[in-house]
């Protein structure tokens, strides 16, 4: 959609060029506003992480002696709240990975069954999935604590994976169903006629064609798990099973805390999702279409 777009045509009106210049100026001004709007809180995070401890609450807008020493403390687990930092980081990645994998697996299977195999009353399942959102996540905190104990998952990272998958799958089903409508049914039919079993169609045709939606939902699920705080806080307690957000919350519990270490931890924690978003952003935009555009 690069060469053929509308604005490519030569100027038809005399003032077209001037309007265009004004348009560019306005766009640039908007860009400046957007950059300030977006980056201010992130700038504040980085600034605190570069400050010395005494400087955190000073009235400066740039630290008087910026240094990366907080980052070194975090990376070398040099503060006692962070003594298992890498272990906790690994837990977060572990939870993120399994959340993505299970959300995509469970979501795509059920969407395939409902959307492609057209199982009878499949819409009931879709609606049931949406009903998950009837109850706000915070409502389920105590019930979840209880059921995790009875499932034998107390203080276990798998309890978090279960929670994240529970909340991510309805959205996955929603997107997969919408996106799946754009895949021609002939492909399935042709494969069936060639003798492919439903599971072969699922792996060889459905999943590859769904790739953009899988990437989009996968990123969504990862960010959900990465952003979530309440359940990780409630269900994990010892330092070795904790995740980074819970470790971050330790800083909030104390009467007195090295906020610069906390923000340095936060910045390090923020890096993976940012990288993943940038790696997949092309496919992602396509996958999020939701099939909402139609006449």
């Amino acid at each position, binding site marked *: 959609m690069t060469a053929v777009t509308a604005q490519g045509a030569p100027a038809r009106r005399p003032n077209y060029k001037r309007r265009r210049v004004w348009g560019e100026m306005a766009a640039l001004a908007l860009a400046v506003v957007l950059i300030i709007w977006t980056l201010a809180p992130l700038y504040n995070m980085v600034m605190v992480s570069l400050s010395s401890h005494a400087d955190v609450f000073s009235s400066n807008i740039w630290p008087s002696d910026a240094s990366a020493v907080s980052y070194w403390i975090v990376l070398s687990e040099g503060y006692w709240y962070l003594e298992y930092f890498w272990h906790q980081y690994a837990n977060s990645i572990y939870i993120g990975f399994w959340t993505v994998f299970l959300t995509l697996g469970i979501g795509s299977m059920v969407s395939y069954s409902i959307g492609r195999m057209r199982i009878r009353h499949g819409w009931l399942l879709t609606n049931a999935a949406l009903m998950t959102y009837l109850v706000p996540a915070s409502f389920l905190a105590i019930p979840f604590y209880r059921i995790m104990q009875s499932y034998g998952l107390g203080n276990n990272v798998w309890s978090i994976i279960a929670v994240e998958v529970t909340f991510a799958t309805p959205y996955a089903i929603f997107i997969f169903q919408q996106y799946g409508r754009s895949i021609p049914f002939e492909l399935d039919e042709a494969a069936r006629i060639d003798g492919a079993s439903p599971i072969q169609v699922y792996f060889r045709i459905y999943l590859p064609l769904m790739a953009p939606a899988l990437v989009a939902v996968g990123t969504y699920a990862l960010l959900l798990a990465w952003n979530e705080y309440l359940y990780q806080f*409630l269900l994990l307690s010892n330092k070795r099973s904790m995740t980074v957000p819970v470790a971050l919350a330790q800083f909030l519990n104390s009467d*007195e805390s090295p906020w610069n270490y906390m923000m340095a931890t936060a910045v390090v924690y923020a890096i993976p999702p940012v990288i993943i978003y940038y790696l997949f952003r092309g496919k992602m935009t396509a996958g999020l279409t939701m099939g909402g555009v139609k006449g």
Partner: protein
Amino acid sequence: MTIITRRSVLRNSLAVAAAGTLARPFIANAAASTATVWWTQGFVPEEDAAFRKMVEDYQKQSGNTIDYSLVPFAPLSQKIVSALTSGDVPDLISHDINDQIFVPQNAWDDKVIEVGDVVDTQKDQYSPSVYLATQYYNNATKKRGIYMIPFKTAVIPFHVWNSLVEKAGFKLADAPKTWDAFWDFFKPMQAKLRETTRNIYAMGLQCTTTGPADGNNMFAGFLIANGGNDIVTKDGKAHLDDPKIKEAVAKSLKYITDAYKGGYVPSGALSWNDADDNNAFHSKLFVMDFDGTISTEVALYHDKEQYDDIATLPLPNRNDGKPNAAQLGVGAAFIPKGAKNVEVAKDFMKYVIQPQVTNAFLKEGLGRWLPAVPSLVKSDPFWMADPHRKAYVTEGLLSETVPNWMVFNPGWAEVNAQQVWGAAEADIIRNGTAPEAAADAAFKKIDAILGKYPIVQS
């Protein structure tokens, strides 16, 4: 024969899935001699190490196993509530605010096991306030019983930046000896200090509704100094009709809100949480802070210059000139009903509360918490060796103390949680309500809350 239910199948398959994919398998049901313990994570790493050592020593001596989790403050609160609600409980729970929230409420609901046999092993060692604070009213038996095993205590001292006082041209030795006059002493320093610094205030007065603890503690300090300690008496009755109490409340509200309206307190104080005033004090945003424990000082332990610059002061006299009494916070453990191994939990706590064992443990916490046993600070020179600790010990163990009001009536835990005083202060500050009217409104709320906790006289 095992009956296979859907739940057990689910549980097993989930457990298998978990064990198969996770490097650390889930710990199976504990053996008979194991007690599961939840303990608050320490303030400094040494405190956790001291706890681990205490557990090891106990395990060696007794042959029992203590399966413990050291949980940070806020998650521990959530876990306790969830556990007691759902019935899946550990064998022993120690939390710094057990005395303020969990034990009064749950003893009332008959969800806590009596531990008189444990507490009585040290009965003559505990100070009267501590012993009183082990007892709570049980609404099922309609009796007070011993439900909490104390091992540490805390009070609220004053923290002052000496250098700021001197920079303003004052001397701390000149500070008046009665409550309001003592606070007033710091007010004129603000104008002096503002000559050189833009943002500086006289006092960190936590007139907040966020808390959870600071706003209530600060107000209790004022109320007692104004002669209002009998707002709730030992029989669990509130005396809200007593004109003396009402006057004390109104006077306290008036002083606090006048200080705020007079600009002596940072405006953010209205929504401070418990850490905010500590942080602000450390960044020298104000000269003086009235805040629980000596954590303010201990946090700067490794910065000798700053550490020595802070002066820790015990309470001045009440406004009527009589000696003041600090409200005593009690750190303690309790055993929830439904605990699988009550005996080991009790045995462990009997070990912990032995004065020498507790002493070694608390000293590692740099004296942030005081012992529950006054004789210790007389026999061990550690407690008087440091000026901050000395002031703290003087206030908490060597002077008269009074228990928290929820010891007498569990409804008071809810009064605190509802931040009734913070709300009254906010009402005066933001809406211009008169202190007397705000006091009346607060009394109405308190009356409604305590109405849910009818205590029968025995």
